[in-house]
């Protein structure tokens, strides 16, 4: 493994591939700006999370095997999604014949921001982003990958995304009333418990609006897709960008 230019396998969530290619592009360009050698296995499809969360983890064996075969030989696997990364680490069905590969993937798969802070040890990013930014703490990244301290726990406060963004020139990190409440997407929950999902999304948007947020950002397009869907239906002014897009735009 070449520490100077690690070979990163880019893992782009299926809905990002289909609906938000700009996030995939931003992630790729950003990793390259930090000196990574990035490859994108063309055969990739989906991590299987929607099926597993709906109660069909046992039926995701095919998806899991496919993922492992595509990604097992990279130094690192990086995805612009906390929930997909968490799923690969914790909810792939146990495959006896691929035990070693599964363990290795568990240890080398990262969500984008934690890859930047923990592995590349990125510090003092130089760049401009003169906007009032509101951070949405997507739950799987927040409490699954511990990308930031949780408001309900007693510990030293930290936030990996904030540490990357806060030094950008002109960026104002707006404090919310509820810093890490769920947006209500939850995968199939968004349609099976539609009324609740909507209410939770609206409440998150209200919180950002009440704190003058111009750009709502986060590490998971699934949450953003849900919030953006409500915002555009209701004609709300707030704009949406994935963290990768902000960083990629700000850094030349």
């Amino acid at each position: 493994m070449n520490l100077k230019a690690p070979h990163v396998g880019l893992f782009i969530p299926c809905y990002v591939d289909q609906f938000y290619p700009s996030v995939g592009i931003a992630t790729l360009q950003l990793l390259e700006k930090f000196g990574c050698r990035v490859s994108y296995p063309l055969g990739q499809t989906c991590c299987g999370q929607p099926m597993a969360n709906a109660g069909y983890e046992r039926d995701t064996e095919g998806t899991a095997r496919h993922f492992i075969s595509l990604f097992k030989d990279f130094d690192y696997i990086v995805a612009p999604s906390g929930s997909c990364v968490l799923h690969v680490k914790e909810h792939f069905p146990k495959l006896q014949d691929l035990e070693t590969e599964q363990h290795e993937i568990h240890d080398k798969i990262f969500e984008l921001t934690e890859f930047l802070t923990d592995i590349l040890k990125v510090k003092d990013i130089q760049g401009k982003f003169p906007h009032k930014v509101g951070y949405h703490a997507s739950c799987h990244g927040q409490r699954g990958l511990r990308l930031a301290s949780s408001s309900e726990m007693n510990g030293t406060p930290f936030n990996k995304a904030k540490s990357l963004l806060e030094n950008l020139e002109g960026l104002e990190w707006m404090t919310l009333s509820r810093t890490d409440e769920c947006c209500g997407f939850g995968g199939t929950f968004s349609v099976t418990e539609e009324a609740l999902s909507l209410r939770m999304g609206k409440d998150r948007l209200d919180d950002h609006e009440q704190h003058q947020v111009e750009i709502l950002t986060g590490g998971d397009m699934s949450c953003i897709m849900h919030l953006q869907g409500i915002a555009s239906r209701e004609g709300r002014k707030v704009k949406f960008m994935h963290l990768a897009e902000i960083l990629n735009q700000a850094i030349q």
Partner: protein
Amino acid sequence: MSHPQAATEFLKDQAKAKWHDETLWFVRDKRDRISKTIPEWEDLRNLASQIKENVLSKLDVYLEEYEKKALQNGIQVHWAKDAEEHNQIVLSILQKQQCTAIVKSKSILTEECHLNPYLEKNGIEVVDTDLGERIVQFLNQPPSHIVLPAIHLKKGEISELFHEKLHTEKGNEDPAYLTHAARLHLREKFLNAKVAITGVNFAVAETGEFVVCTNEGNADMGVHLADVHIACMGIEKIIPRRKDLGVFLRLLARSATGQPVTNYNSHFRSPSAGKEIHVILVDNGRTAQLARDKFRNSLKCIRCGACMNTCPIYRRSGGFSYGSTVPGPIGSILSPGLDMKKYSTLPFASTLCGSCSDVCPVKINIHEQLYEWRQEITKTHGELGKGLSMKLANGIFKSPLAYKISGNLMRTALKTLPKSLIYHPINSWGKGRNLPETPQESFKEWYQKNRK
């Protein structure tokens, strides 16, 4: 009614739903603030979790030890395998005492066993003495929260209720005034009750004692004036040593209401001269849950309610939407064990955000158990359609070509279909949200054009 239906109903009254959410968030916030004044908070949670895991790994040993010590202290010990037997034991004690009117302090276990209707059917007047429980009793409702039974009611509703039942001034909503009226009304009941029933917060195997925690003092007002005290407990409420109470009592009230400790923590070891104390040890599905590897740890629960206060779904749908004695996140992992079919929507009434697990004082991995129950439920009760569509989805995601084709189809379809078709009511997503805009090309297509 399924959870989604009940939740939709609850949310129709937007102002009330918002008030309910904010009130419970306020309690969660109090819990956060006080937990941060204890530097060793997370250590306490670890200790409590380990103590409870030890208990669950040798529950039979501790139960036998508890019984031996309790009997030595003059406490009478009964065992009930299910709710029916529990209720029969209570009734038989009352009949022996020739008692037809009792007072009862908060016990979710007695709710679980539906004790009140059983006793009433047998001619016993039951008065719930916790203020919140008395209120819901007057309304013929179950409690909507295990610690804050009347959290779903506004003071206007309670004022109207008390005007009707207790003849308080019409329109007087002052909580102090209403509480005082309840104090006078219930005092009379305390003074006349020969038998008082309580729950049990903790039973100590080492000493045979048990502890009852209240803020109001209603448990004690009942038992110290009565001749007979019946204490009902689930078998999982045992803790090994007296000193373990230090850990649990430091965590309980702080987690439940954000107070440093409940006002009264009464330790019952021996009856007063001439009086009786009975403890009823109840199984009612607990040994079955103990046998379930993935769900055993749900029995660590000390019934603090913190998971309900933090749950964004509970706060916006209310306790009644779960249709179970214990609602909220913990209820959603306990109830399917009792009746998987009846409670099959509960583990899906969650986004798996994980906040419940973070606030649980005994570190139950609630959100992981919710995920595991989903796997169990689809094995037995997955609607045929959903199972098929999931297999199909796996088929698509297993094959890059199938994925590409279906992705293209989906994106093309969304571009060309009229809005009315996309936003048809059957498509729930579209009720309140727009779909994302469809880009010209997928990331894959861009990559192939620009990078290969």
